[in-house]
């Protein structure tokens, strides 16, 4: 399952390369470039040590730590040398800049989403958001990490089945989990609000409804653009709204 021609069931998983991160996000729906040559990191700073760049063309894939295929050459990059090893975050596939970019996408509900931004199955960001949600609930006196974990797991499985049934191209579980995890961010705002104020009045109901709408709108927008399901945004948004409604129920009560 080499996947470099792009059409497999794991949508966009393996063709997103490290060199694309050197270019800033401009949401213009740029095509992928498939060549893996030398490249600079103007704004990445110390993310990759410069001496590494001069030694060998690094063509490993930062976002797929378990990806063992290398595109063109059969060189082994994680050699036995200590200096040849990539930094830990890179090896784990955690790129804070990308996490931040995707967070901004979720937070601007009216911004048009680029379908390619959710290609890699990045679960570091969603993990952080789930933990932050549990932490804000903890601050409100509700020790419900288990509920958050269970509901997010079952919700991801349910959305995965539904989206696979509704879309022409399939979708991978990692992509669904990643999108749903990122769109949990406004719910963290709700639960942090619940630390200080009670959400059980009319104001709380309106705020809760607004936040649920925001989360489900962002999630459906990203799913629609990633799966090219035109005209079905409401059909995708409604199950997302039900899932985020259950999270809201935990926050409110």
């Amino acid at each position, binding site marked *: *399952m080499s996947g470099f021609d792009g059409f497999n069931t794991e949508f966009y998983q393996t063709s997103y390369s490290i060199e694309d991160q050197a270019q800033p996000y401009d949401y213009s729906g740029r095509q992928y470039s498939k060549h893996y040559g030398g490249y600079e990191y103007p704004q990445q700073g110390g993310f990759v040590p410069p001496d590494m760049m001069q030694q060998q063309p690094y063509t490993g894939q930062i976002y797929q730590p378990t990806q063992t295929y290398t595109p063109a050459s059969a060189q082994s990059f994680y050699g036995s040398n200590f200096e040849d090893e990539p930094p830990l975050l890179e090896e784990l596939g955690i790129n804070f800049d990308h996490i931040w970019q995707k967070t901004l996408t979720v937070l601007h509900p009216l911004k048009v989403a680029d379908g390619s931004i959710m290609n890699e199955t990045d679960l570091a960001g969603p993990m952080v958001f789930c933990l932050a949600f549990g932490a804000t609930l903890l601050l409100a006196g509700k020790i419900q990490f288990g509920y958050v974990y269970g509901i997010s797991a079952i919700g991801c499985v349910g959305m995965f*089945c*539904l989206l696979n*049934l509704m879309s022409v191209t399939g979708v991978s579980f990692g992509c669904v989990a990643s999108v749903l995890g990122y769109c949990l961010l406004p719910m963290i705002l709700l639960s942090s609000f619940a630390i200080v104020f009670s959400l059980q009045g009319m104001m709380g109901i309106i705020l809760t409804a607004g936040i649920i709408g925001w989360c489900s709108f962002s999630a459906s927008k990203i799913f629609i653009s990633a799966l090219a399901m035109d*005209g*079905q945004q409401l*059909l995708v948004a409604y*199950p997302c709204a039900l899932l985020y409604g*259950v999270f809201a129920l935990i926050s409110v009560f």
Partner: protein
Amino acid sequence: MWQVGKRQASRAFSLYANIDILRPYFDVEPVQVRARLLESMIPVKMINFPQKIAGELYGPLMLVFTLVAILLHGMKTSDTVIREGTLMGTAIGTCFGYWLGVSSFMYFLAYLCNAQITMVQMLSLLGYGLFGHCITLFVTYNIHFHSLFYIFWLVVGGLSTLRMVAVLISRTVGHTQRLILCGTLAALHMLFLLYLHFAYHKVVEGILDAFEGPNMPPFQRVARDIPVVSNAVLNTTAKAIALTL
């Protein structure tokens, strides 16, 4: 090794869990879903000609999940305590149990009574019939007024039941068969709504009046003393005092 494991798992998954057979039932447009939701409340007049039932599963599935969410909300607002189980499990079990169980039972009865309906159509019909239940419960879990509930039960619940009954009558031949099928469906559907209202949203009126918290419902109620609760409190206090002495 990861790749080999992944390949084997995906092969097993595609063999045993082939959900692609359900794919045609989820191919809908939002306009169609909206139209079918509204139609589910309008009883058809023409019962001599078999009425068309859309064999679609997206709308019914979403309605069942909506009912689960409404039940959860109702249980949380009334602080219902489920002793053996969880709130979520109870809600999901009740709603899905009703949808799948009653659909199967009605399909079996339809088979006995020679009605022309497939299993998917029965699931779809009953699922869309839950739209009336969703509306009724959403309104009456938030506005606690018994007579309002009875009005909604008769009108909204009755309309959706009449719709299902009319469609079934149009697809069944023979008076006895029609009576059996439609009587069973009407009874089960209406009684389910009654059950959902009374079992999942216990409002103990005297205690709510005593506390007067921020959840005070808008309608005034006469304060009543609940002898069971006050006796229990008295007994527990007496026991505690006796133990310390």
